[in-house]
């Protein structure tokens, strides 16, 4: 996982598998970046994510709640088809903009 901060935008390049076991470490790193960076926009990039279950939905919902405190926006980009399906099932499009992997 890589995190890039440019001005008020933080981009998190997620990678590998997102399950209950691995989500905790990701969450801690992302939250640290949000706390220090105070972004107006957080972009979660799913290009290199190979697997995700509902732990990933929890990860997205939790970050959304954190960003809400400062009114910041959340974008999910480069979602693989199967992960897009899970996001839609969870109704995440009501919280964040979703963009499929092209």
């Amino acid at each position, binding site marked *: 996982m890589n995190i890039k901060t440019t001005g008020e935008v933080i981009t998190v390049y997620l990678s590998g*598998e997102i*399950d*209950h*076991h691995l*989500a905790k470490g990701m*969450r801690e790193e992302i939250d640290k970046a949000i706390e220090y960076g105070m972004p107006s926009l957080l972009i979660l990039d799913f290009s290199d994510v190979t*697997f*995700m*279950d*509902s*732990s990933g*939905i*929890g*990860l997205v*919902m*939790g970050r959304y*709640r954190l960003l809400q405190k400062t009114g910041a926006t959340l974008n999910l980009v480069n979602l693989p*088809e*199967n992960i897009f399906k*899970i996001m839609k*099932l*969870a109704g995440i499009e009501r919280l964040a903009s979703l963009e499929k992997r092209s």
Partner: protein
Amino acid sequence: MQTNKFSLTIPSKSSNESFARVTVAAFVTQLDPTVEEISDIKTSVSEAVTNCNIHAYPDSIGKVYISGEILEDKTVRIKIRDRGRGIEDVKKAMEPLYTTGGEERAGLGFAVMESMMDKIKVTSKPGKGTTITLIKKINDKENAK
């Protein structure tokens, strides 16, 4: 008629979630599934095993029993069983967004399993444990999009 089967017992460690879903996916491979079908099975098994790790054995490491059977008509039946604390109200536990797992859990595990499998069955006895049965027909071209 049952044509093939496996069973596996693993401790309820979160690091085993990946091992469990990959093992079940490998077993299903003999039915020549599509990429989407394999993805659906991996995700559903991951949800069920994660439930055991978080809810069945919240404060200890218990055993998770996983079995798979190939039934006739290219149908696979997967059972994930624990001897953990059980679910008081199965209907409530299956409601989308309902969770007792805290803020970082979406409460969507059963909703994900239901949407990805053809059939799921949950039986539970408080104090005795829970069994989740997942059934999916593989490579059903008529239903494939």
